[in-house]
């Protein structure tokens, strides 16, 4: 029935082509929106409201209706603060550090597709690029810790270095399973495979890799939690020990960049997880009678981002839920968990996927 509806919808998109300069502007604006809108939404919905409700209180209610303007108020507050730096800080690098962390988020978003034609770049090695570029933020955190001339920041930065590099590996290995199953590293192709596939002959559900790659999904989400330095992996920040870890000496505008980067990266990693495991911007193509990426109707470019945002919010909700419920690991327990538990599990997952791919 849905297929009939889709077929009857007018098809005027192909006649309208956009000049290149307009496309570039749309891409820049779209990139900014795709990074900052999730950050704002996540901060309000989960950090202000969900955390408060889990603690039996209401959260910010004064700024705007039900506190919706609180983030804007906070942005305004941080922007008007004095630009401080410690006396012995290495100023040039001290100023660069937050920007590097935010840079890695923007570099990540370019590879996430929001619709069949609504993508920023369509790399053949999409996921490979994403994983490579995702580790640029480690640099930013490390130099933030070093350049702050503060022993607490130093401890936080060193812990971050160890933790983030250790948890890169399970993330990479978890995505290996997906790549093997989809036979491609291009994110749009991975989404297409998920939405056109079928499990046990049932086609209307598609083949979201969360079902077959359940172990990979779990490992990926745990690794993402560690990459974002969220509890239970927030040793680098460790508020009760290191005051604020590598961010201790940052205030005002620079802290705002760290803050936005933290939640924007959470959003972007969830976009990638949604694309890899939950079927991305699409719903199973069978519902509309499409067979491959070329068949997908033009209006999916507008509905796709909405679907993507929904899936992203769901995943970030789980990340934040875990963050508010668990205490934190100690550094050596963290490392043991990564090296002795997650990496062997991810390797086993890859091996099993490869074997099953050849056999089935």
């Amino acid at each position, binding site marked *: 029935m849905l297929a009939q509806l889709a077929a009857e919808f007018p098809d005027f998109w192909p006649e309208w082509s956009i000049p290149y300069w307009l496309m570039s502007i749309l891409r820049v604006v779209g990139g900014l929106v795709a990074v900052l809108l999730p950050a704002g939404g996540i901060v309000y919905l989960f950090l202000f409201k969900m*955390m408060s409700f*889990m*603690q*039996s*209180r209401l959260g910010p209610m004064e700024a705007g209706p039900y506190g919706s303007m609180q983030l804007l108020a906070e942005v305004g507050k941080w922007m008007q603060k004095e630009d401080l730096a410690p006396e*012995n800080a290495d100023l040039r690098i001290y100023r660069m550090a937050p920007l590097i962390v935010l840079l890695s988020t923007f570099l990540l978003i370019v590879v996430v597709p929001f619709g069949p034609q609504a993508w920023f770049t369509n790399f053949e090695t999409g996921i490979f690029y994403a994983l490579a570029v995702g580790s640029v933020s480690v640099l930013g955190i490390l130099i933030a810790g070093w350049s702050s*001339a503060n*022993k*607490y920041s130093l*401890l936080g930065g060193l812990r971050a270095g160890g933790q983030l590099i250790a948890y890169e590996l399970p993330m990479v290995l978890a995505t290996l399973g997906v790549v093997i199953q989809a036979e491609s590293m291009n994110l749009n192709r991975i989404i297409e495979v998920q939405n056109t596939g079928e499990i046990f002959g049932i086609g209307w559900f598609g083949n979201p890799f969360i079902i077959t790659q359940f172990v990979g999904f779990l490992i990926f989400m745990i690794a993402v939690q560690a990459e974002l330095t969220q*509890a*239970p992996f*927030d*040793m680098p920040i*460790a*508020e*009760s*020990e290191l*005051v604020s870890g590598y961010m201790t000496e940052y205030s005002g505008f620079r802290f705002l960049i760290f803050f936005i980067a933290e939640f924007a990266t959470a959003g972007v990693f969830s976009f990638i997880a949604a694309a890899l495991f939950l079927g991305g911007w699409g719903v199973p193509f069978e519902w509309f009678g499409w067979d491959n990426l070329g068949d997908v109707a033009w209006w999916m470019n507008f509905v796709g981002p909405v679907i993507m945002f929904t899936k992203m919010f769901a995943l970030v909700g789980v990340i934040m839920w875990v963050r*508010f*419920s*668990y*205490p*934190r*690991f*100690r*550094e*050596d*327990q963290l490392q043991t968990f990564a090296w002795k538990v997650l990496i062997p599990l991810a390797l086993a997952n890859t091996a099993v996927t490869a074997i099953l791919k050849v056999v089935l």
Partner: protein
Amino acid sequence: MTLTDRQQLSYIASQAADARLNVELETEGMTLNIGPQHPATHGTLRIICRLDGEQVVWAEPVAGYMHRGYEKLTEVRTFPQVTTLVNRIDWLGSFANEVPFILAAEKLMEIEAPPRAQVIRTILFELSRIANVSLFLGDLGVQMGAITPVFLAFRDREYILNLIEGATGGRFHPNFDRIGGLKDDLPKGWIEETRGAVKKLEQFCDTIDDLLFGNEIFQSRMRGIGIIPADIAKDYGLSGANARASGIDWDLRRDQDIPLSYDLADWKVWTHPDGDSWARCWIRLQETRESCKIVTQLLDQIPAGPVMTKVPRIIKVPEGEAWVSTENPLGEMGYYVVSKGGLGPFRVKIRSASFNNISIVPWALKGVYVPDVITILASLYFILGDIDR
């Protein structure tokens, strides 16, 4: 490459800064100051640690940032005024501070409070213990990284504080104990309200059990950390839950004969053989449940009668010395009151539990990681007002 003057100067300055930090205590490794302003210490406590990477090589607590001169202050105050001051030593379980002092004064005067006053004193004492330890349980979460339990702790503690306010007029500083009894009787409806509040606190204990103590991450952070054997605990004078966690079966509520009504209720003393941080925290959770049980039982047994014996309007305590110590929420708190027959004491020596509890920090922190420093400090549970007085 030649350096400009400015570059040379900044290089020399940075070398000097490094040297300054190392010369301070002429060691290798890094010297880290935990405190005095720090989110993890319950107040202004400073702990100087020498670190080798992430391991502590040497640690020393520096207390005194909050010294208010209590023992000197009491020399120029009358007995009711001292009761007011003494509320503020362990400010979380505030009624518990007044009780040993008043009992010491009553011992000198050789009077006893009427039975109704004794039972109400015990109930308020146990309510202070519940209020104090429930905040500890919440704070334990924050120091381990779980941010939710502390809000639940503050929420449920409000019931206790409202009860104390209903009876005494002050949430944190009740100032309710008087020599010879209590200031006032209970307002109508207080007993029913207390029953409801205690039930809520029992639910809170169950929630914390599920959310925090049942969490595997929490357990792996706590078990086997900071083991204090029983003989070391005795040597350093640990008391309260810290001692009972090392297996020492000693509780002043049961083991000494003071005019508080613990024998009217059926309760048990919890000990644990391990002596690690997990044991100390777990025992406090069980003790909170036990206190709820005591309060529920005592509420049914409040005898009718006056709350104050006949005492003169202006009280002059006769000459003599008395020592009374009780099982306070933090440990053993005692007062040695010397009176020379005046309106106020001649000298009061306050033995506070946290001062002895924290004396074990240099021994306990050797060779542990920095996160474990926080774990051990959290599990020893001290309040700065109690250490510094």
